[in-house]
């Protein structure tokens, strides 16, 4: 597939941005100003970015506890994200949600669930609403290999196939659910790779290769948008840092350092950067410009977050029921 240089730079920029945001959060986390359990997606940026780059603003995504990347890639407001991590009123959920409950209605992100698998049927329902309204919006669901253990996936996929819903199921198989390896939980490959292709388009790809992700994403988004029904894409990837919080908080000994090192070599951001430089699409000056822009943006987000007021005792009772 031909991807323009411009597009490639765009994709790279988005990945780099998400990476830097995550790194900053990690670096500052032990200061205890972000009092909410963060789940960083370092190593998995290509998936959010590749898939979301094919979506329109009106398309939906459904996200999970490890959702910063999905949120940013879909166009969620960085300031509102960082403020939410600080549990401030300027946060996207006004401090009620924290890191695991992000939302940006303006870009089709209608809230992420911290119940593993919980977002799968919700994303399916967003697809149904699209279909019922006769709109062309597609719904994309991000979930992990842990979520793929849950029966709700089977139920949701069946329903999406049955009704030919415009839903894209993106399984981010990062090999681990907390300290539990996928092989301790899953017998063989996910069975849905065997679904008949007229019911479900399915593929397993290298989730760390942004170009592969982009390519498949283009295919499945087109399918969904044109009424060809759901897709199920498994992206092999890896969570480089700990399950939650800063790396220093991750329990030791559940995975080999060797494994981590191997995956670090497959870093989606650095590898793409190398290719882009080799291909002379990215220059060091563009890169440093990007870095500066991102760094500035992050500085601003953190300082805005700090200035944003804390919710008060009284605020607690604001959202009992919606009028």
């Amino acid at each position, binding site marked *: 597939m031909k991807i323009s240089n411009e597009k490639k730079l765009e994709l790279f920029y988005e990945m780099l941005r998400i990476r830097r945001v995550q790194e900053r959060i990690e670096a500052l986390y032990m200061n205890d100003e972000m009092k909410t359990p963060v789940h960083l997606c370092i190593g998995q940026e290509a998936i959010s970015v590749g898939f979301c780059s094919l979506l329109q603003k009106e398309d939906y995504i459904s996200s999970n506890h490890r959702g910063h990347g999905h949120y940013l890639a879909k166009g969620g407001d960085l300031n509102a994200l960082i403020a939410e991590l600080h549990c401030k009123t300027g946060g996207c959920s006004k401090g009620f949600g924290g890191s695991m409950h992000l939302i940006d209605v303006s870009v089709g992100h209608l809230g992420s669930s911290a119940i593993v698998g919980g977002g799968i049927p919700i994303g399916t329902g967003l*697809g*149904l609403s699209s279909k019922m309204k006769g709109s062309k919006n597609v719904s994309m669901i991000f979930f992990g290999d842990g979520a793929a253990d849950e029966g709700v996936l089977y139920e949701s996929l069946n329903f999406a196939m049955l009704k030919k819903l415009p839903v894209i199921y993106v399984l981010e198989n990062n090999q681990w659910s907390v300290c539990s390896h996928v092989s301790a939980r899953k017998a063989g490959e996910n069975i849905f790779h065997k679904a008949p292709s007229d019911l479900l388009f399915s593929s397993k790809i290298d989730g760390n290769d942004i170009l592969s992700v982009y390519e498949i994403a283009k295919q499945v988004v087109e399918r969904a948008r044109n009424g060809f029904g759901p897709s199920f894409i498994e992206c092999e990837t890896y969570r480089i840092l700990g399950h939650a919080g800063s790396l220093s908080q991750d329990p030791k000994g559940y995975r080999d350092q060797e494994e981590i090192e191997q995956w670090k070599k497959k870093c989606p951001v650095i590898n793409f950067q190398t290719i882009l430089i080799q291909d002379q699409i990215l220059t060091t000056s563009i890169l440093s410009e990007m870095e500066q822009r991102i760094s500035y943006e992050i500085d601003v987000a953190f300082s805005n977050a700090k200035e944003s007021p804390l919710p008060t005792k009284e605020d607690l009772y604001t959202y009992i029921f*919606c009028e």
Partner: protein
Amino acid sequence: MPWSKIKPIENEPDFCSEKIKDCRRISYHEAVREGVYQALEQDPNVFVMGQGVDDPSGMFGATKNLHQKFGKERVFDTPLAETALTGMAVGAALGGMRPIYFHNRPDFLYLAMDQIVNHASKWYFMFGGKVSVPLVIWTCIGRGWGSAAQHSQALQGLFMHIPGIKLVMPSTCFDAKGLMLSAVKDNNPVIIMDHRFNFKQNGIVPDYMYTVPIGKGIIRKNGRDVTVIAVSHLVTDSFYVAQELMSEKIDVEVIDPRTLRPLDEEIILESVAKTGRVVIVDNGWKTAGVTAEISAMIVEKAFKFLKAPIGRVACPDLPTPAGYTLEDAYYIGKPEIKEAILKVYSYRG
């Protein structure tokens, strides 16, 4: 939003009134169905889903043939997958639809608890009010006929505990329609916990659209001696007991809260202030259920008026047995209500 056109009616006609014979009387299932029908007609975003909603019996008649009128896209049968389908309804609601999800028994809601409680009930609060989930879950308590432990549970006590969900329990045809319309109009998740015994009734139901407000109880019979608060079909039983007791010169006030969350505390507390004697009647399990909450609430807020222990008439803390002799021992009705009233009435501290 087409919903804003509907006028709420605060009071329904007198309960079991003999006066209004000229009004239209229809059956309970017709009342529910009319509410759903008018909702579907009113708002293209409303849709109906559930196992068997399009089958010949049509959910005890409540959804009968709606698919023929509104199409199979808007009134559809589902796989047996209560977890995902509930989540799906939540998602559809977030996408701007107004699903009404029918279950023929509350027992199956246990399969959907994660989506109901972890998701639907929390979404509005958890995201700081940014979105809400206008979802109606309708379900109908089974009773009798050897349905046994897995097909007869009355789960209002359980759901009453959950913040973020409105909980509705109609007891008349009028309310069945009006509360259905209120529920569909509401921007929050609403559970309507109906009861098969309600389906025996005919009642006065205006043919136009109207809503019965969620959060407002109603006095079904005025009285000065004892306050009875009863839910669902037990309102009728309590009403008949109250009428019986008039001959014994015991003047019972019967309150139908109609919705359990929000609960109309005012109507209850006012009555307690008058009578000082209370019996609470619920067809669910006793412990930590509806009777517990209403009793505790009264003690908190109207202690000084109380002249006797608060009577609690509820099903025993047991699964429902299959056998009819055991069912007889298990379920509550007029005799248990009467006994409790007499006990509370005759209590001298």
